[in-house]
């Protein structure tokens, strides 16, 4: 057997459409390519000419799984352009909304999309026949996240209550209180889910990643902080373009991001966790230690544990916010249109999400740029495949294919976002 090609035409259990091609020559992986064939939708083009106030609702439609991330990066970019900042209760409410999205999105991935890879099922519905309790528990925690989104955002998908400057309507304190009961249950359940995922069998694969995430002076990052890396980068979001660049490859409707001067990097739960372990709540840190994780994790397969830890953290943080919440005098601060350039970088469930807008004097969007996490991770996913798949080449075709898919799903790739993703094609010559 001189060589072969592993091909997955349409990768399942990822959000969107993509394929994967791995070329093997003389028993070694020569190349691995992700092709994203999600049809392009041209958001950056049709945002031009729209009012700055429309960006949160329009960009939410890039992704049904993480619309809050798009709304948050958009509002922060607009507020940056217009020179306004929100009050503390509004800042807290934005963190609370983001907690809801992390819980919902991570639980979808951990329980429904990723766990079947570790336990050997085609999907969560098959898995439920043997692991019914685990699936029901995962769905119930996911529901707790969705309840935050439904109350604070109006609905789970494409929330309607987010605006530049804050919210249309701020919740009453007594409206938030019923959420606390379920969140206390969800926090305990998330701790069990951390233990459950920690018992999975993990391939012994590590890579020396360049992690990139936000870092805030006090908090585990959602909306605020400087962009830092595990190799010493420490910049404000406004300098993003000076340090990162996107290139366009023919096989993909998604752009690929690199550090200027070369090199792939990794955003998302592993990066956030490894760069911000000290900002996690004591409970989340304790759960991580109990799961056998150090304060830095470089095994991408263990990202499933890290997601469960972030769910635990998000439940904890949501409970903290609900506890200290004081109703704001006004649900939003006034946003007066004006010319300017604004950037916003926030932590989507899948990692750093960067928006940049240029506004005309009347607040019309003249230029828009959006860099989603999956574009940034794409080179790193391909490098993981190149370095890891070699170790599985002696396995039967079907298992090899499953390993490749699992490796890609470590990233919870969101192709709908990035095409703006999967087939597996393994070429052994």
């Amino acid at each position: 057997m001189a060589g072969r090609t592993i091909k997955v035409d349409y990768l399942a259990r990822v959000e969107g459409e993509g394929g994967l091609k791995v070329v093997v020559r003389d028993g070694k992986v020569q190349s691995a390519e992700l092709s994203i064939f999600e049809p392009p939708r041209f958001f950056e083009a049709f945002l031009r000419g729209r009012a700055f106030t429309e960006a949160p609702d329009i960009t939410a439609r890039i992704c049904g799984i993480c619309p809050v991330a798009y709304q948050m990066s958009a509002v922060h970019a607009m507020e940056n352009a217009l020179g306004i900042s929100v009050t503390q209760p509004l800042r807290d409410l934005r963190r609370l909304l983001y907690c809801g999205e992390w819980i919902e999105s991570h639980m979808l991935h951990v329980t429904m999309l990723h766990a079947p890879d570790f336990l050997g099922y085609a999907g969560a519905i098959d898995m439920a026949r043997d692991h019914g309790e685990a699936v029901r528990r995962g769905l119930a925690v996911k529901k707790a996240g969705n309840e935050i989104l439904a109350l604070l955002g109006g609905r789970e998908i494409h929330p309607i209550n987010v605006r530049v400057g804050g919210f249309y309507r701020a919740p009453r304190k007594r409206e938030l209180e019923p959420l606390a009961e379920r969140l206390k249950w969800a926090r305990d359940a998330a701790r069990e889910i951390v233990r459950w995922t920690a018992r999975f069998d993990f391939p012994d694969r590590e890579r020396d990643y360049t992690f990139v995430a936000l870092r805030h002076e006090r908090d585990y990052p959602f909306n605020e902080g400087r962009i830092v890396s595990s190799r010493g980068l420490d910049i404000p979001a406004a300098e993003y373009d000076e340090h990162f660049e996107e290139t366009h490859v023919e096989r993909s409707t998604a752009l690929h991001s690199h550090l200027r001067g070369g090199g792939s990097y990794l955003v998302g739960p592993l990066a956030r966790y490894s760069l911000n372990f000290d900002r996690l709540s004591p409970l989340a840190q304790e759960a991580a230690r109990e799961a056998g994780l150090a304060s830095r994790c470089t095994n991408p397969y263990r990202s499933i544990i890290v997601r469960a830890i972030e769910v635990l953290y998000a439940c904890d943080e949501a409970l903290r916010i609900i506890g200290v919440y004081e109703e704001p005098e006004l649900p939003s601060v006034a946003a007066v249109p004006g010319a300017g350039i604004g950037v916003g970088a926030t932590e989507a469930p899948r990692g750093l999400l960067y928006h940049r807008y240029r506004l005309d004097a009347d607040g019309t969007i003249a230029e828009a740029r959006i860099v989603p996490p999956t574009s940034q991770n794409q080179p790193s996913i391909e490098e993981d495949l190149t370095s890891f798949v070699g170790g599985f080449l002696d396995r039967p075709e079907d298992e090899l294919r499953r390993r490749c898919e699992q490796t890609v799903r470590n990233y919870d790739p969101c192709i709908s976002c990035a095409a703006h993703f999967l087939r597996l094609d393994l070429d052994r010559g």
Partner: protein
Amino acid sequence: MAAEKPRPRLAVWKFASCDGCQLSLLDCEDELLAVADAVDIAYFQEATRGTISGRYDLSLVEGSITTAHDAERIQEVRRRSRKLVTIGACATAGGIQALRNFADVQEYASVVYARPDYIRTLATSTPIADHVPVDFALRGCPINKRQLVEVLAAFLVGRRPVTPPHGVCIECKLKGAVCVMVAHGTPCLGPVTHAGCGALCPSYDRGCYGCYGPKETPNALSLSAWLAALGMDERALQRVYRSFNADAEPFRKESERHGG
């Protein structure tokens, strides 16, 4: 134990979209396992590794047609499906990506991509019904998951789903919500927009922005006069109809009357 009756086969298909409408099925946390008991989820790429084979009793189709490949694929989906239901604004009206229908797609590609020559796409984003017969259309950007469960339940017993085609105004009245337009002077598309959301935006002190698309017999001409009286200029009037259901006919026609 009695012999198991074969369960109807369900398929979920994705075209150009955000994945949000099919996610609504996974968001039915309390109903999902019951649905999986009642129907055989035979093809659902977002949730499970399965392969396309045979015929499906019910296909849920998300997304719009924006590539030549997808224009062919929808024909194959229709051939394999006994009933075909479109879910959401993309599948039903072309979605936000139908804004290209009012512009030059080549220019769009050159704005987003360094190598627009790598991009294969159609000049338009079109709803599924422009390509194949559709048995039922569920509205919304995104769809309401309770309405999705109603569509599945109705299909299982062979009746038509109950999704009222009246306006959001009726939902406000049913809910006892204060009219944001009359009481606060907030521009609202509720009078011309299809019900289904439960009057969400007005309940949050915000005007409806039309994400469920046009209701039956909308009088957008009249609404525009009211919106203008509330201070919306010609460009804003054009934009307000050109969002998630921009190419739904009543909204498209009204938007073409404005812009100045």
